[in-house]
């Protein structure tokens, strides 16, 4: 814990270079054109994420969790607003620049695991390193073996994804997400395709890694059990942040909670939503 819990998801515009921030989402909107209509997936969302937190994005289906994760993961671009990753504003970058940024600073864990079926567990974990020329052969090998060990799959290195259970696949995916030593791991509903027990184990593994490595984790979920394992939570509804929570011991304390009527903030700068 950082000792300043209200930062968890403090909806402010912080300076880009604040070294305590892993991610800063600043007034981000995402709109889709569906024929004549405009679908607002995210509406002027602002959010600061401290380094090293284990943050859950909660909210009903269609509330914009995936959309927000995609923006933070630099795999989609906001209609308005800015995303700052690690103190670097990522707007206006070319696809190749974003690819290089993702390769080195962001790990992804997917709901559907997304392992390459033709590659073994070892090769799947190795895959992201193949595009990082700065990492030599030996180090590559050491890292892959290390992270397979971390996720408890040292004995499954030669297995193909279809020879692994769902939980094991997601472990491989976690090892893959970590192998490039990212500062941030994003997981969109990592447990949705797993049974409860396996899902919780996956979350425990992620949290253990989070504690041990201080890598920031942001994951989305529907599952209240899973939300309970986070130390910060951001609740979304209709593309807006409706609640920001910090967990101390077993209890959530809410830094911000939207009432039926949005509270009147004196300082418009600190207002979430529109």
């Amino acid at each position, binding site marked *: 814990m950082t000792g300043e819990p209200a930062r968890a998801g403090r909806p402010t515009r912080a300076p880009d270079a604040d070294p305590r921030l892993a991610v800063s989402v600043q007034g981000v909107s995402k709109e889709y054109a569906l024929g004549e209509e405009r679908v607002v997936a995210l509406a002027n969302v602002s959010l600061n994420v401290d380094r090293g937190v284990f943050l859950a994005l909660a909210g009903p289906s269609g509330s914009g969790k995936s959309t927000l994760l995609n923006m933070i993961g630099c795999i989609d671009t906001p209609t308005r607003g800015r995303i700052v990753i690690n103190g670097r504003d990522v707007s206006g970058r070319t696809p190749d620049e974003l690819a290089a940024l993702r390769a080195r600073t962001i790990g992804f864990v997917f709901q559907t695991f997304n392992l390459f079926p033709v590659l073994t567990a070892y090769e799947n974990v190795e895959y992201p390193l*193949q595009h990082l020329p700065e990492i030599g052969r030996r180090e590559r090998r050491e890292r892959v073996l290390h992270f397979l060990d971390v996720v408890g799959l040292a004995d499954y290195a030669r297995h193909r994804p279809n020879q692994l259970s769902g939980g094991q696949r997601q472990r491989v995916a976690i090892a893959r997400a970590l192998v490039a030593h990212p500062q941030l791991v994003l997981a969109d509903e990592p447990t949705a395709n797993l049974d409860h027990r396996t899902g919780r184990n996956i979350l425990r593994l992620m949290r253990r890694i989070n504690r041990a490595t201080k890598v920031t984790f942001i994951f989305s979920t529907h599952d209240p059990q899973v939300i309970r394992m986070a130390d910060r939570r951001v609740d979304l509804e209709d593309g807006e942040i409706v609640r920001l929570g910090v967990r101390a011991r077993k209890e959530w304390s809410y830094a911000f909670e939207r009432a039926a009527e949005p509270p009147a903030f004196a300082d418009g700068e600190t207002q979430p939503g529109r």
Partner: protein
Amino acid sequence: MRFLWTIPWFAIRNLLREPRRSAMALAAVTFGIVALMLASGFIEWIYYDLRESTIHSKLGHLTIARPGYLEAGRADPFAYLLPADTAALQRVRSTPHVREVAPRLYFSGLVSHGETTVSFVGEGVQPSLETDLSRAVLIEQGASLRDDDPKGVLFGAGLAQSLGVRVGDTVVLLANTPSGGVNAVELVVRGLFTTVSKAYDDSALRVPIAIAQTLLRVQGAHAWIVLLDDTSNTDEVAKVLRQELPHDRFEVTTWYAQADFYRKTVSLFSKQVGVVRLIIAAIIVLSISNTLTMAVLERTGEIGTSMALGVPRRRILAQFMAEGTALGLLGGVIGLVLGFLLALAVSAIGIPMPPPPGMAHGYIGQVKVTPDLAASAFVLATVTAIVASVYPAWRASRLAIVDALRHNR
């Protein structure tokens, strides 16, 4: 760059995921190469056969004559006679790759048998030097000319027919002499011949060169016909001879410069082979791009994953290009082997062909796959495969990551 080697490996494994589809694409490439090799191999054989027949019936590989004879000699043949024998002839004989140098004296006149008289084009030849040089002059009836038979004449089959002569008949040849007079000799028909050119057979006759010289009252010959050990040496030897023989007295002309029919045939068939190539290229393009488009569609989710993990677009492009290239190369190699084997088999059996227009005989076709031809078939298939993969690969590399990822569901 350092990890480029992983691309082909990944490509092959991806191809093996859909063995049936990959096999289909491979089969298309293989079929393309085989078809191209057989089609152009057959035509190559026709070229070869026509070329060698042309060389071995009339032209030899090289013709050495007085400068200007080939263009203007018909009008004034006596102005272009080569000396009977010289050091130059010796020099030609001793040039590497030269197998035979045979003198020819060309003339024309009238030939009569009984009441009938027709015009002819004649060639005086030295029979002992013609055995191999004229091996495509096929003796249909009777026998060939001999050095010790000064009174013999060979008739083209068509000419014999229009004059109504048979082997053993006596004929009279009339020709102009340089002084403007007319001279005649009486000869016995020893045999009838046919060549690749029916037009030639309809008007030509051959006599020993000594008789021709007597008839025309001249010495020497119009041309020395040079036979080489191999047709592919034609240009090389022509170059050497052009350097060695004095330009003002000798002109060296290659067979192909005179073989009009051969050149026209080649250009006609080459166009046809061009069409075959185009069709085959189209087949390969369609099948490879279809295969890759399917692969891109199917693996859209994986492409999204790769891109999310930070793989740059160019690498995605390279990956799919590698798959197309692998199909092209592999299909190419299989096609080459299969093509060679089939060409051997077809040649062993033979393709019976009817007589082409202007020729006297049908023939047994073969398939002649030269290294050049095999290489160009291989290059066509692989290059086409690579080109065909550009578009699908490019499409793959331009997918929007978020949309691509959605395909994993």
